[in-house]
């Protein structure tokens, strides 16, 4: 399970896929993948369209890629990606990142300490890979599921936190 100061350890693919298969219908709350526009390009990856809503109500579209290679002992990897390539390349893809301000539980870094994009939140794998400090009460709970990741990111894409698309 997730621990402070410990390097994340990958799960076996079979166990990670089984956990994702088990949690997917719970997180979807009765809807299908196609109904919500999600894609599963491989057994351990989800591509999830998200919308950032600015203070004036204007919307911007984003694509979130979740990978479950370390799941469920550790949270999913979470990255905003270029919708054409489904990847994130720095610095060419920074316009596919949202600007999030004033949210104590989540920030988005285009290149955190030369380690690439970081959705800085205790519900993402990258947060633990960069050994970010964390309060014990915010640790990922392996008895939960990736709704925690998705809902934290969705919350940051709403007013008053979301401030538009990052400019190159």
């Amino acid at each position: 399970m997730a621990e402070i100061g410990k390097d994340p350890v990958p799960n076996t693919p079979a166990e990670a896929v089984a956990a994702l298969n088990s949690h997917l219908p719970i997180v979807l709350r009765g809807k299908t993948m196609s109904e919500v526009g999600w894609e599963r390009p491989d057994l351990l990856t989800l591509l999830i369209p998200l919308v950032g809503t600015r203070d004036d109500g204007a919307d911007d579209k984003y694509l979130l890629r979740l990978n479950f290679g370390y799941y469920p002992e550790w949270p999913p990897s979470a990255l905003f990606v270029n919708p054409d390539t489904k990847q994130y390349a720095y610095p060419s893809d920074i316009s596919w990142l949202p600007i999030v301000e004033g949210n104590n539980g989540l920030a988005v870094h285009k290149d955190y300490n030369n380690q690439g994009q970081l959705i800085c939140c205790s519900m993402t794998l990258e947060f633990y890979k960069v050994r970010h400090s964390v309060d014990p009460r915010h640790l990922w709970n392996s008895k939960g599921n990736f709704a925690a990741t998705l809902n934290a990111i969705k919350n940051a894409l709403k007013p008053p936190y979301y401030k538009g698309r990052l400019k190159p």
Partner: protein
Amino acid sequence: MNDQKDEKHEPHGEPEVEVIYLNTNEDAKFHESWSRTAQQVWDDSYVKLGEQKKTGDQFETQGGKTLMPYLALTLSQLRDQHISENRKFQIKCETGGA
């Protein structure tokens, strides 16, 4: 108006509430008296969901409106003041980061 109709048709006059726990997207549906406060409904939700309340948790409508300033209001007051008319709530948990 719909809620007034609900009040007549709910068993024993107790409306159904729905609470989603956003850390898992699991939900609980249960009946509460119109005189129960938002604080009491929130506390009852943890029992129904089998979760433990954590520091930093927040009680919201499912539209994302915080109910923290209104925890002393009853379900009927939340309805009458148009704060929550459908009794659909969610529990948001704090994360670390930023």
